[in-house]
């Protein structure tokens, strides 16, 4: 069969990859190397931000600080959501078109914010 010749030019057979040598599994695929270290970093950031989130309402419990509390909490949540989207959902490494599709609910969010601002500053 010509199969062996056909595959010889590509990356070695998957079975030969030992999971231990995880760093750069596929020599021929520079852009697809492992992101494991990045994932762990993002995980630690997400965990830390979650702890901060839980303490924010306790620090800013008085009515005087309500706006600051709201800004902080929404900012933290949006940051976490963006991190999940960019890294865990690989948006950072996708082509612009897929990013525009992913942003569709955000356009609605922007519209909502405009409507809310109109109500607040009327």
């Amino acid at each position: 069969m010509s199969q062996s010749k056909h595959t010889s030019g590509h990356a070695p057979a998957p079975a030969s990859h030992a999971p231990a040598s995880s760093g750069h599994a596929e020599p021929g695929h520079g852009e697809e190397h492992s992101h494991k270290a990045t994932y762990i970093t993002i995980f630690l950031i997400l965990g830390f931000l979650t702890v901060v989130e839980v303490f924010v309402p306790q620090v800013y419990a008085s009515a005087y600080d309500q706006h600051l509390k709201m800004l902080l909490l929404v900012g933290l949540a949006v940051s976490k959501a963006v991190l999940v989207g960019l890294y865990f959902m690989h948006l950072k490494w996708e082509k612009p078109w897929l990013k525009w599709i992913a942003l569709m609910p955000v356009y609605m969010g922007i519209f909502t914010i405009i409507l809310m601002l109109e109500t607040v500053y009327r």
Partner: protein
Amino acid sequence: MSMAATKALGASDGHDHGHHEVAEDSHFGKATGGKIAMWIFIAQDGMSFGGLLLAYGLLRIFSPDWPVPSHVLGIGLTAVATFILICSSVSMVMAVEAAKAADKAATVRWLMLTILGGLSFLGIQAYEYTHLVEAGITFSSSTFHGVDINDRFGSTFYAVTGFHGMHVTAGVIYLICVLRGALAGKFTTGGNSYSPVEIVGLFWHFVDLVWILVFTFIYLL
């Protein structure tokens, strides 16, 4: 048929085993049709959640007697549930990495951990719902330990968190289906065969992402 056209049709020829490639598209690069479809689904599903959260926000803003959520809901337990969901997102990306590296055992292991995370989240939610119902908060009426609170608190709470819980349930079922394929070794034959694991991952991360926002808007604010 030209070579390019054959390649564009996908790797159904069998000879090129272990190197299924999607032809480079000028707009979507090497994203598979399934991946693009899942993103379109996620975008519209995000708007469903957006609609629910918007309705919740409006009802709350125009109700001066809205209770402070942290006085009614358990923040600590839900923070744990949030953290479990974040952990399950990490195990999910690890499953995708393992499938990409054609490591079947690791793919199965990480997928199982992800499912376990989802089930734990659902367990906590069931526990939480039970206690809230016992305290008097249901979908249609809200009293908290005998004290009347705004009726819409219960309806919006269950509508938003219930819709999310339904997504976690669907995600767990979806993950179990993918796990079956992983056990059969379908997604670890190299090339693009890992794609179904990546696509279920997109859905799972989306469920996690939505919860991050729900946790803030429903529980913390």
